[in-house]
């Protein structure tokens, strides 16, 4: 049952986007997010739509998976749109009691809606085409300059990858313990709030114990292999920019430039 939930939802496929250097995808996604706030006119949004559609097509990930990422944000999206719709002053087009919809409100709501949806889809393209390990690798390289001001970049990214690595393990563990307790007649669904909270004890106690046990084991295994942090540590597969990575930077920058031009001209 818990197996169905995916976090760090990597979708395995063989596409140019999957092969890109994670740094390119990171910076590219960031530039795309910036471009969404640059775009302000119909043409600007049209260009953003084309760009995003192109990227999705290149990624070979079914659109269904992109839209799945939107589901948990639906409520947030709805609230934002409704607030914008009703609370922006301007020319009134429809009125009911204290509720007013204005011309400006509609435009703003549509813009915010599109921005949010594109923002989520844009970043899911990144997480769908990059494995969590590649992501942390890329992040580590991008942050490397911060080492100079004594930020433990390697340690932070190591913690991140361990945390990501443990998510599926702990989910599986939860599933297993839940089933074991259900086999002993435990009930996790019915009852009021207090009963429900109480019924979680047989799940949480073993889960915490196992998390600590695993953490201990991992620490021991790392020490046994002489892990000593990031100092002088090299990588087995260091990230090196290839031709297509520069190409991807080029395309993204041209796109961003076009958005800026549209913004200034229109």
């Amino acid at each position, binding site marked *: 049952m818990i197996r169905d939930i995916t976090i760090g939802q990597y979708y395995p496929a063989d596409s140019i986007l999957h092969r890109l250097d994670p740094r390119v995808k990171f910076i590219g996604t960031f530039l795309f997010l910036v471009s969404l706030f640059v775009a302000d006119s119909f043409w600007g949004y049209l260009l953003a739509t084309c760009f995003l559609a192109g990227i999705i097509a290149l990624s070979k990930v079914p659109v269904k998976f992109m839209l799945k990422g939107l589901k948990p944000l639906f409520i947030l999206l709805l609230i934002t749109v409704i607030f914008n719709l009703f609370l922006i002053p301007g020319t009134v087009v429809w009125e009911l009691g204290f509720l007013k919809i204005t011309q400006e409100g509609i435009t703003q709501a549509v813009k915010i809606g599109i921005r949010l949806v594109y923002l989520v889809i844009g970043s899911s393209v990144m997480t769908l085409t990059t494995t969590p390990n590649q992501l942390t690798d890329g992040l580590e390289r991008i942050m490397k300059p911060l080492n100079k001001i004594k930020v433990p970049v390697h340690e932070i990214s190591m913690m991140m990858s361990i945390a990501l690595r443990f998510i599926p393990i702990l989910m599986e563990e939860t599933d297993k313990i839940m089933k*074991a307790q259900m086999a002993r007649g435990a009930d996790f669904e019915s009852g009021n709030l207090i009963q429900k909270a109480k019924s979680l004890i*047989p799940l949480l106690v*073993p889960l915490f114990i196992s998390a600590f046990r695993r953490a201990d084991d991992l620490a021991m295994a790392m020490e046994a292999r002489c892990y000593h942090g990031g100092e002088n540590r090299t990588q087995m597969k260091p990230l090196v920019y290839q031709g297509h990575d520069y190409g991807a930077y080029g395309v993204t920058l041209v796109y961003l430039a076009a958005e800026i031009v549209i913004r200034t001209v229109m």
Partner: protein
Amino acid sequence: MSLRLEHVTYTYNPGTVYEMHALKDVSLDIPDGQFAGIIGHTGSGKSTLIQHFNGLMKPTAGTVYFQDEDIWQEGYSLKRLRSQVGLVFQYPEHQLFEADVLSDVCFGPKNQGLSKEEAELRAVQALRQAGLKEKYYRSSPFELSGGQKRRVAIAGVLAMEPKVLILDEPTAGLDPKGRDEILDQIAFLHEERKITVILVSHSMEDIARYVERILVMNKGEKAFDGVPREVFSHYKELERMGLAAPQITYIMHELKAKGLLADTSAITVDEAKKSILEALEKRKV
């Protein structure tokens, strides 16, 4: 009064790239009072199969019957089913959570709606059956050794007095002495209480020594189903599935190849000894 599966199929993540068939059209019938064993390579679908027996997993297709009732029909109480079909998971000690041994074992009976006194009575009885010494009843389950924890966890299921007891690798990670003690205890329970026992195991020796019937799972399908003697005679096929027959079977086949007319279907050390001695007697004459 039996456990029956008809054409059960189970698919993980249907319709996605991660789709995987864990069970493919499995039909079987386990009559009351049988001591059955399930063997199979890692990932052969053993664990998925046993979770269908007590309704923890719902088949993608097919039907599961307990006492001739479809367990997925509307209004069927899965909670009652689970108290009749007890399932002990692999490494069951990982599910312990209470402050002391006795209250942990009481968890099951209390969920069945028994009073505190009744539950404790059942718990004491179950702990005795699982072979845990009385001096540990009030200590924290986390202070016990691995074998003792395992006993507590098994007692936790026994205390619900199930009619069918399923054990998934109950001896994994235990020393030989602890392993024999736990298996003997289970065999004793089977005799004493006449309950159905389903034992999932990697060890062919354990299976050969205790069970009356073996189910061999391979890649989600039932490969063999029969008495141990018959199943182990397919030891060549078993090897191809990444399994093996008990060592004795190999010794007997070797002996036969060298010309000793011993019974190759012997599967336990005692049987082998008897048959070798008989063959040697004959040779003298």
